[in-house]
């Protein structure tokens, strides 16, 4: 890996961490437990399009780990929820990207949907309770909306990037 790429990926990782921490201040999870808009996914989508699948895994894994370290929730329940959601989302996004059928909007929706599925599965497993599954339909429906918004935002960001030096 070239030094330039390392620096750029770590900058993007830092942006992701800031977005994730800022997002945790938004009270969306009071309205519907487990719901997040997923601003941090902008960086994942950006890296996926600009650098490829491997770099996206690297940046997102680092982001989840470091953001929870900074928030003081490392290895707590919310960390595992976030990690399992991110893992499933990354798997789905990689597969979706590999097939080449989806635009960035579709990849973003895939990621959002699988993030909620992963979280609900983890909650069910940790608490051995099934009340979270009641929220799954709502979370899935909302993830379509939030996924489209985040995908559109990432596309806008990439359009602006095009004039710059290629990376």
């Amino acid at each position: 890996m070239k030094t330039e790429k390392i620096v750029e990926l770590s900058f993007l990782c830092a942006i992701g961490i800031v977005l994730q921490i800022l997002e945790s201040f938004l009270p969306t999870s009071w309205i519907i437990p487990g719901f997040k808009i997923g601003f941090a996914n902008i960086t994942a989508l950006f890296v996926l399009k600009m650098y490829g699948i491997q770099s996206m895994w690297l940046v997102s894994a680092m982001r989840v780990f470091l953001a929870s370290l900074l928030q003081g929730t490392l290895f707590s329940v919310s960390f595992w929820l976030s990690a399992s959601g991110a893992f499933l989302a990354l798997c789905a996004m990689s597969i979706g990207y590999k097939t080449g059928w989806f635009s960035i909007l579709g990849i973003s929706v895939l990621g959002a949907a699988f993030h909620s599925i992963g979280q609900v599965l983890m909650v069910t497993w940790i608490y051995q309770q099934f009340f979270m599954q009641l929220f799954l339909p709502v979370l899935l429906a909302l993830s379509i909306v939030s996924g489209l918004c985040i995908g559109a935002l990432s596309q806008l960001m990439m359009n602006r990037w095009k004039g710059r030096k290629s990376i």
Partner: protein
Amino acid sequence: MKLTKADRILIVILMLISLSSLFFLLGHTTQANRADVYVKEEKVLSIDLNQDGQYSVEGTNGKVNIEVKDHAVRVTQENSPHHLCSKQGFVSDSNVPIVCLPNETVIQIEGDTKEDTVIQ
């Protein structure tokens, strides 16, 4: 920025899954399934509401007979001046307990839908 065909299919599939699972889940989980019977603040009996049946506990003034039918519970017979709890009839709401003060007996329905965790 345009939606490809696969994007549209994905969104439609997600909507269908979300709608169908909503109907599937709503049919199952809203019912309370347990009633606890307390005599003198002590839990003496836990009744499964999914099964119809007759139960009886020893209250202060003698036997209190309890009947379970169609996920609801009622007191059928008891010794007390006004018979208030047997007049109350069937109860299936966890917010409404059956209280039999002369017998010091309380029947409380417990739902599993109580929120006891906060997820961030």
